């Protein structure tokens, strides 16, 4: 048995847990830990330039791989800087373990230098947290933290480590627990067969069925099973913003994303369906359109989720099924195949004919600019899709560009669309793209951003230089906080209160170059394809592509506030 200090034990435990990369930033309270990192070569530590970026990078890594992302920050400001990233992960149920330094035990509560009650500050945005009191507890706490973060409905876990607990002079016998049992934490097992049977009966009797699948399917590794079940049933399917890629976007049964900026056909199918199979979703207000009493008025609602508290939280489920998505889907598929009653093909045909009519509206049709020069933001995403052959990892920030990326990239695989759906954190996209690039060095990691969001974490250009990350940043530069401006156009008489700043934007090309990267500006539609190709051809360089897009463009369709899902604004001049 090895004699280790707390700092050494922490790093060893991470390694024993299968961690190979951590994202962090040093400071006084974690110096013992950094010394332990220096003395080993099993775990790679990535030095970011801001703790928020460490959390988003770890988050991106987790979203891409399914493994928990790991973050190491110092006490006080290091810890509080991490909060936005922890909250982002929490809202989207992303597994993450955040290790924060803390002042020495004897100083806790004394308002010591760089002291913050991290367990308290983070409490509403973590799945659980630990304050370590003895070095010898470190292996067990690390084991528990990873278990909690990555099982059930995943989420971030904080481990707060007082400096004295990592003291290199205090050693103990290190052993990493093989497995863990916690009497107070049980992971829901398989779904109830009887409930699944009830759901299957409803699906078989349905005349206008609809499948609504979200991020839970991706987190629960259920995409393949969902695809099999959906094909077996022949039903239309929509994905949430968080669920894009859970079902292949290019498949004919896919009706597009739903919700506030969902397609006309997806929202109409939702509104008029008579049976709704909801899987790994939480009936978010960006989907239901605020007034839940108008939501799916004719539908029997079947809700599958691993988190019982998610069921009937906003919309009452007629058939609740608590269980891991993959196990429920598996059993559902088996029951569907074995069912004596078959899908009502005749009604289904009528339903698909109706959907085909809705599709004809072509709600995502792009009208090119009249002058033939101005670039529409949608055209940029379409071009990026073509050049990357739909096979890139695409992270995004928050705003119009995010919605355009979601609507026009067409994700065919899970874990390819990396975005902050729940918290909507500007500044997420770029560091998340770093996490992706670390996880998949040979993949194409694209960050679709806006000139507003990018400025919230642009310091990471330095990290990308240090680690030679060849990320492709596609900035849909509309010289404005576009989404804010869109709302002001639509609801505030066009009064652009603090949403424009064209005169004070940096020269992003020079900015990228000053960090040693490549910058390419695209202003004319005629050069869009060629210059994008040029950017993607620079395989080993980070390229910042500053695309000046039409600042007047709005994201459509858009849900009409207070309406039902069928109520949408389709363009500047058309409503449903």
């Amino acid at each position: 048995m090895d004699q280790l200090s707390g700092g050494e034990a922490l790093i060893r435990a991470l390694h024993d847990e299968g961690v190979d990369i951590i994202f962090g930033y040093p400071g006084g309270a974690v110096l013992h830990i950094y010394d332990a990192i220096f003395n080993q070569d099993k775990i790679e530590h990535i030095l970011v330039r801001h703790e928020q970026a460490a959390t988003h990078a770890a988050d991106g890594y987790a979203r891409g791989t399914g493994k928990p992302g790991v973050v190491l920050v110092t006490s006080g400001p290091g810890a509080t800087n991490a909060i936005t990233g922890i909250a982002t992960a929490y809202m989207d149920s992303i597994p993450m373990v955040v290790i924060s330094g803390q002042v020495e035990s004897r100083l806790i509560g004394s308002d010591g230098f760089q002291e913050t009650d991290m367990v308290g500050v983070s409490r509403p945005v973590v799945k659980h947290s630990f304050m370590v009191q003895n070095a010898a507890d470190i292996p067990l706490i690390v084991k528990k933290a990873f278990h909690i973060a990555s099982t059930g409905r995943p989420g971030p876990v904080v481990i707060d480590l007082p400096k004295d607990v990592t003291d290199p002079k205090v050693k103990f016998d290190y052993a990493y627990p093989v497995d863990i049992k916690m009497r107070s934490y049980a992971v829901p097992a398989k779904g109830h067969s009887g409930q699944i049977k009830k759901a299957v009966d409803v699906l078989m009797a349905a005349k206008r069925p609809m499948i609504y699948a979200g991020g839970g399917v991706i987190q629960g590794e259920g995409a393949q099973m969902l695809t099999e079940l959906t094909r077996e049933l022949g039903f239309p399917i929509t994905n949430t913003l968080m669920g894009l890629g859970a079902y292949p976007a290019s498949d004919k049964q896919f009706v597009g994303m739903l919700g506030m900026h969902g397609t006309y056909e997806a929202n109409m199918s939702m509104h008029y369906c008579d049976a709704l199979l909801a899987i790994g979703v939480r009936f978010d207000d960006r989907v239901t359109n605020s007034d839940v009493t108008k939501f799916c008025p004719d539908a029997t609602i079947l809700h599958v989720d691993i988190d019982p508290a998610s069921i009937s939280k906003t919309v009452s489920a007629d058939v609740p099924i608590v269980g891991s998505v993959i196990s429920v889907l598996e059993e559902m598929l088996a029951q569907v195949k074995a069912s004596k009653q078959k899908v009502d093909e005749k009604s289904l045909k009528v339903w698909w004919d109706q959907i085909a009519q809705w599709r004809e509206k072509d709600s995502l049709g792009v009208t090119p600019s009249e002058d033939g020069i101005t670039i529409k933001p949608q055209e940029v995403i379409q071009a990026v899709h073509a050049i990357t052959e739909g096979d890139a990892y695409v992270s995004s920030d928050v705003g119009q560009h995010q919605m355009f990326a979601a609507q026009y990239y067409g994700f065919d695989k899970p874990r390819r669309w990396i975005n902050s759906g729940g918290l909507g954190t500007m500044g997420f996209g770029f560091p998340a793209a770093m996490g992706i690039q670390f996880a998949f060095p040979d993949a194409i990691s694209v960050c679709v951003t806006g000139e507003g969001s990018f400025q919230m974490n642009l310091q990471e250009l330095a990290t990308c230089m240090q680690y030679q990350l060849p990320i492709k940043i596609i900035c849909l530069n509309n010289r404005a906080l576009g989404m804010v401006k869109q709302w002001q156009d639509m609801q505030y008489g066009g009064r652009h209160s603090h949403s424009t700043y064209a005169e004070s934007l940096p020269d992003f090309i020079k900015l990228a170059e000053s960090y040693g990267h490549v910058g390419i500006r695209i202003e004319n539609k005629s050069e869009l394809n060629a210059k994008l190709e040029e950017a993607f051809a620079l395989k080993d360089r980070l390229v910042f592509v500053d695309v000046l897009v039409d600042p007047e463009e709005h994201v459509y369709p858009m849900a009409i506030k207070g309406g039902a899902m069928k109520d949408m604004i389709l363009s500047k001049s058309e409503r449903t």
Partner: protein
Amino acid sequence: MRHIISVLMENEPGALSRVVGLFSQRNYNIDSLTVAPTEDQSLSRLTLTTTGDERRIEQITKHLNKLVDVVKLVDLTEGAHIERELMLIKVKATGAQRAEVTRTTEIFRGQVVDLTNSVFSIQLTGTSDKLDAFITALGESIVLEVARTGVSGISRGEKVLTL
């Protein structure tokens, strides 16, 4: 409706703040709360009263159950149960009022636990309603101070809340 929820949870630092934090975070109200270690020192039993419709109470119990420190819980109001609250109350009484206070205390089966020339300290146990009624019977004008423990409860019959 008023519900009494009893929770067995790990007797660990931070556990209580997670429960209380959950209520404020999700805009649920807590009317009363009592907590103490059980015969098994590694567990605490927390009992709280809250109000809400069925749906809200269901969300409350689900979210409580989700807390990693919570081992088990029961909504006592779902079945036959016994609830008790203890109150210490200090009242000012002189002259003829003294006999009146003593009599009211007897009727409510309270005990006078401390006495001076003009001040009674009385202990009373019962349901929250009974404690409320006692205060009303004494007359609020003579009440100097009230300390109530909050509701504690247990199921009737065979049903137990243990591991």
